[in-house]
C-alpha cells in the first residue's frame, strides 16, 4: 500500500521534472517539438513542456565578446599595421541564431570576424596611417559597426559595439619609428643647444658692446670735460698774460729755464759773456 504511494510519487516527480524547464536571466530558450521550432521568446522563469516530445535549447543571452587575434592590414601607403579589435554582440533572434549557427557562439564569432576582417581591410586600404590612427578612427569604427549590423540580422544577433583596440606598427616598422624619433630628438637637442649658444653669444656680444659704448662715451665726455678745462685754463692764462705779453715772455722763459735745468746731471758749458756774467770779470760791468 505505502509502497504504491511512494512509487506513485516518484513517477509523478520524474514526469514533473521532465515537463518543466527553467530559463535563466542569462539565457534565451528555444522549444523544439520533434525537431520543429515550437516556441521562442521565453521570459526568464519556470516554463512547461511536454516530456519526451518536446525539448528545449538554451543559449547564452549575455553580451558576447569577440576578441580575435590581431590582424595585419595594409594602408594606402602600403604600410602594414597591426589591428586588434573586439566586437560586442548578443543573441537577439533565437530562432535565426539557432538556424544560422546551430546555436554556436564560436561559429557566430567566426562569421562576424570575417566581416571585421573584410571591413577593416577595405577601410585601411583607402586610408593613410595617420588617418587610421587619429583622424578617422571613430569613423572606421562606426562603419565597422554598420557592416556588422548588416550581417547581424542574418545571424540573429545584435551588435552592441565594435571597437579597435590597438592600431600599431609591426615590430620592424616600429624600430624605424624609434630611429626616426631618436633622430628627431637629436635634432631638437642640437637645436636647443645651438639656440642657447646663439642667444648666449648674442648676450655676451651685447654686453661687450655695452661695455665698449659705455667706456667710449665716458671717454668722449671726459675729453669734453678736459677740453673744457683746458679751454678755461687757456682763457685764464690768455686773459692774464695778455696784460703784458713781453713780460710774460720773460717770466715764462725764466721759469722754463729753471724747470729745464734743475739737475746736476745737466751740464752747462758757459762762456762768461752773457748778461749774467756781466760783472764776472769786471766790477764795472764793462766789456
Amino acid at each position, binding site marked *: 500500500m505505502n509502497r504504491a504511494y511512494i512509487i506513485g510519487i516518484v513517477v509523478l516527480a520524474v514526469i514533473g521534472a521532465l515537463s518543466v524547464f527553467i*530559463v*535563466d*536571466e542569462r*539565457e534565451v530558450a528555444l522549444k523544439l517539438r520533434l525537431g520543429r521550432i515550437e516556441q521562442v521568446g521565453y521570459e*526568464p*522563469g*519556470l516554463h512547461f513542456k511536454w516530456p519526451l516530445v518536446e525539448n528545449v535549447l538554451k543559449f547564452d543571452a*549575455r*553580451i558576447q*565578446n569577440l*576578441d580575435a587575434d590581431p590582424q595585419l592590414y595594409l594602408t594606402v601607403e602600403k604600410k602594414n599595421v597591426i589591428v586588434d579589435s573586439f566586437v560586442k554582440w548578443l543573441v537577439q533572434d533565437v530562432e535565426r541564431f539557432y538556424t544560422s549557427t546551430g546555436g554556436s557562439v564560436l561559429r557566430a564569432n567566426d562569421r562576424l570576424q570575417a566581416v571585421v576582417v573584410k571591413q577593416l581591410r577595405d577601410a585601411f586600404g583607402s586610408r593613410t*596611417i*595617420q588617418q587610421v*590612427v587619429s583622424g578617422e*578612427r571613430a569613423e572606421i569604427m562606426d562603419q565597422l559597426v554598420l557592416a556588422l549590423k548588416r550581417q547581424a540580422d542574418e545571424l540573429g544577433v545584435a551588435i552592441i559595439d565594435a*571597437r*579597435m*583596440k*590597438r592600431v*600599431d606598427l609591426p615590430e620592424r616598422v616600429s624600430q624605424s619609428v*624609434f630611429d626616426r*624619433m*631618436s633622430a628627431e*630628438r*637629436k635634432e*631638437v*637637442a642640437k637645436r*636647443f*643647444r645651438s639656440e*642657447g649658444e646663439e642667444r648666449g653669444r*648674442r*648676450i*655676451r656680444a651685447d654686453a*661687450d658692446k655695452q661695455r665698449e659704448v*659705455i667706456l667710449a662715451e*665716458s671717454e668722449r665726455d*671726459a675729453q669734453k*670735460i678736459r677740453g673744457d678745462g683746458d679751454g678755461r*685754463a687757456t682763457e685764464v*692764462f690768455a686773459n*692774464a698774460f695778455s696784460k703784458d705779453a713781453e*713780460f710774460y715772455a720773460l*717770466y715764462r722763459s*725764466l*721759469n722754463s*729755464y*729753471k724747470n729745464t*735745468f*734743475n*739737475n*746736476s746731471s*745737466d*751740464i*752747462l*758749458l*758757459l*762762456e*762768461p759773456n752773457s*748778461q749774467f756774467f756781466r760783472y764776472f*770779470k769786471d766790477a764795472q760791468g764793462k766789456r
Partner: protein
Amino acid sequence: MAWNQPGGNGKDPWGNRGSQGPPDLDEVLKKLQAKLGRMFGGRRGGIPGGGGFRFGAGGAIGFGAILIAAIALWALSGIYIIDPPEQGVVLRFGKLVRTVDPGPHWRPRFIEDVIKVNVQTIRNQDIGFRRQAASVSSVPHEALMLTEDENIVDLQFNVQYRVKDASNFVLEVVDPEITLKQATESAVREIVGRNTMDFVLTEGRAQVAAEAETMIQEILDRYRTGLQLTTVNMQDAQPPDPVQEAFLDAIRAREDQERIINEANAYKADIVPKARGEGAAILQRAEAYRQRIIAEAEGETDRFLKVLDEYRKAPAVTRERLYIEAMESVLAKSSKVMVDVRGGNSLIYLPIDKLLGSRPGSADEDSEIGAGRDRSVPQTSRDDAARTRSGLRERTR
C-alpha cells in the same frame, strides 16, 4: 572570482546560523509535525509534548517524520547571509526578482538562487604593466601606442573600479572585467591617437586620463557591465625604451640651453655694471683734471699777475732781478763748466761722465721765479711782495 557561483553553496548556512534558529525552529517543527501527522498518520501525530520521532514504530509515522526532517533541513538551508561589502542577486527559477543588501536572509532553496557580488571593494586593473610582488614589468604590446604624429609612446595605466550594479554585473555581460580592459585599451588608444606625442607626454597627461575615464565609463555603461570607474591613473607616460636616451638628451639640451643663456646673462651682469662704474670713474677723472687744470691756471695766473703788478712799479730792476735769480737757480743746480777761452784753438778735454758722478743730484720742488720764495720759509704772497719791494730798494741804492 570575487562573487560566488550560483547557489552560493560554498558557505554552509548551518555553520553560520547555529544558535539563532532553535526557538522558532521548534515551533515550526511542531506545527509541521501536527499538520503532517493529521495528513499522514491520523491521530498519532496530534500528540502534544515531547513524544519525539519514533522511527520504525509504524510506516506512515516514520515516513512523515522523515518528511518533516527533510522539510526542516530545506528550510534551514534557505538561510543565507550577505556580508557587508556584498549584495545578493536573487533569481527565482532564473528570473531576477530582487537584489538584497547585507544581512541575514531566507530563500526557498531550489526555487531561488542567490549570487553574491562584492560591490564595495575597489578592484584594480593594470594596463601596460604587471605587478609581481614588488617588481613591475612592462607589457609592451599593451603599453606602446601610436600618437597622431606617428610616434610611439609608452603609457601605463591603472584603472580602479567597483561594481555599481550587481545584477548587470552578473547577468548582462560574459566577462565584465575583460570588457573593462578592452574598453580601457580602446579608449586610451583612441585618445592618444588623437594627440601628439609631446602633448601626451607633457601637459596632456591629466587630460588624457580624464578623457579616458569619461570614455571608458561611457563604454562600460553601453555594455551594461555594471561597473563604475573610481579612478584612472596614468602611472607612467614615457617615450619607449629604445628612444629614452635621445629624449633624455633632448631634455638635457634644454637645460643646457638655459644654462648657456644664464651664464651669458651672468657675464653681462658682471661686465656691464663694471663698465658703467669705469665710465663714471673716467668722467670723474676728467672732471678732476678739468678742475685741477683750471685751478692751476688760476693759481699760476694769479701769481703772474701779482708779479706783474710789482714789475710795473719798477720794470727795469725787477726784470734784472728776475733774470739773475733765475740764472742763479739754474746755475746753482746744474753742473757747469766755464769756458773762458775765446777763440782758442786748443782742445779742451771735458770728462762728462766724471762730472756727472762728482755731484749728487739735487732735485728741487716747485720753485719758480717769483717773490723770492726759494730763499725763505713759506710766507703769504703779500709778505713776499713787501719784502721784494724792500729788497729792490736796497739793491737800487
